């Protein structure tokens, strides 16, 4: 398979506390993979290692192409006076002419249904809109791999549905970390279950979510 992400024997510890213990998996180009696990399983740490924000103690992470990410708290990603400027900023920083950056930012905002409120600042938007704006900032950079940390946390069912619709239209590889199993069932074809820093299950989302014992054993039910 054409791999977009390869993780091999990844280890990470916060001081004496081991958070990731020999995590290995690969994600194909264009594949959408869910990452589920109980609190403290190491999901966020794994994503931060993939983003290169944490340095693993051992193991390797390989990302082919450009990486985009959406954090659990989108407010940390949006700080300009309007979401349009937020989306434009990294594009201009990359050297794109202003007009082109604006056009690409507007089309990224249109892709998540926010073009009509592009001139509003993030703190005036609902959490669902903020998450979609954060997604637009990542999409504007045309990533090959997109990482999402708890994209549905604190979202109402309608916002979850909207977000799932936008994610399902993407062509890039996605790793979606979430507790929301229904959301993962609708957005990920494959599921990884992480518990105590280890991948304890890896398979088709539908099959793993049908396994009640597995979900109970790993704190997902």
């Amino acid at each position, binding site marked *: 398979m054409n791999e977009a992400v390869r993780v091999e024997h990844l280890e990470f510890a916060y001081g004496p506390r081991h958070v990731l213990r020999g995590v290995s998996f690969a994600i194909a180009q264009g594949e959408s993979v869910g990452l589920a696990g109980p609190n403290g399983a190491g999901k966020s740490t794994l994503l931060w290692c993939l983003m290169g924000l944490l340095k693993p103690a051992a193991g390797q992470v390989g990302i082919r192409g450009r990486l985009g990410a959406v954090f659990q708290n989108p407010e*940390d990603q949006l700080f300009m006076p*309007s979401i349009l*400027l937020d989306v434009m900023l990294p594009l201009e*920083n990359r050297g794109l002419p*202003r007009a082109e950056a604006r056009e690409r930012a507007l089309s990224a905002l249109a892709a998540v249904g926010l073009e009509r409120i592009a001139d509003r600042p993030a703190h005036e938007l609902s959490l669902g809109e903020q998450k979609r704006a954060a997604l637009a900032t990542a999409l504007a950079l045309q990533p090959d791999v997109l990482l999402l940390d708890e994209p549905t946390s604190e979202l109402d069912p309608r916002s979850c549905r909207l977000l799932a619709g936008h994610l399902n239209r993407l062509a890039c590889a996605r790793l979606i970390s979430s507790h929301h199993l229904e959301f993962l069932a609708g957005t990920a074809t494959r599921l990884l279950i992480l518990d105590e820093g280890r991948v304890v299950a890896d398979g088709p989302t539908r099959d793993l979510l049908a396994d009640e014992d597995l979900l109970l054993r790993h704190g997902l039910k």
Partner: protein
Amino acid sequence: MRLPAAWVGIVVFAAVLAAVEILVSRRAPLIALRMLAVAAAGLLLFRLAPWARMAEWGLSRSRTRKTVLYFLFLAHFSRIFLEEIFSLYHAWKLAAPSRWNRSWRRSLACATASLFPRTLRRAERFYAALLLKEMAH
């Protein structure tokens, strides 16, 4: 009509100033009135200023870009800091309803101390966002 929280301090200060002017100097409270007028004009200007357009204008010029970004980051971080203060204050008020006893003082000290790691965590996430936007090294 309820006074906005930001105005309480200004109005109290103006009232004290007016009282001093009237009682001690025995004259009309002109300084207090002037202060209120300046504060109101400043607030109005702040509310009406087209910040987004000004920032966009500043960002489009290479000479002002860095300065504008600096102030935008500063404003964002100030908002983070204020948010953390308010959320901690509400949590602390709910957790320690009785006043002035030992546990109240201790909980206040702990809440204040926890402000720093909380703000640092938010700052780390903000820095991570900048890294992902290729704006930090």
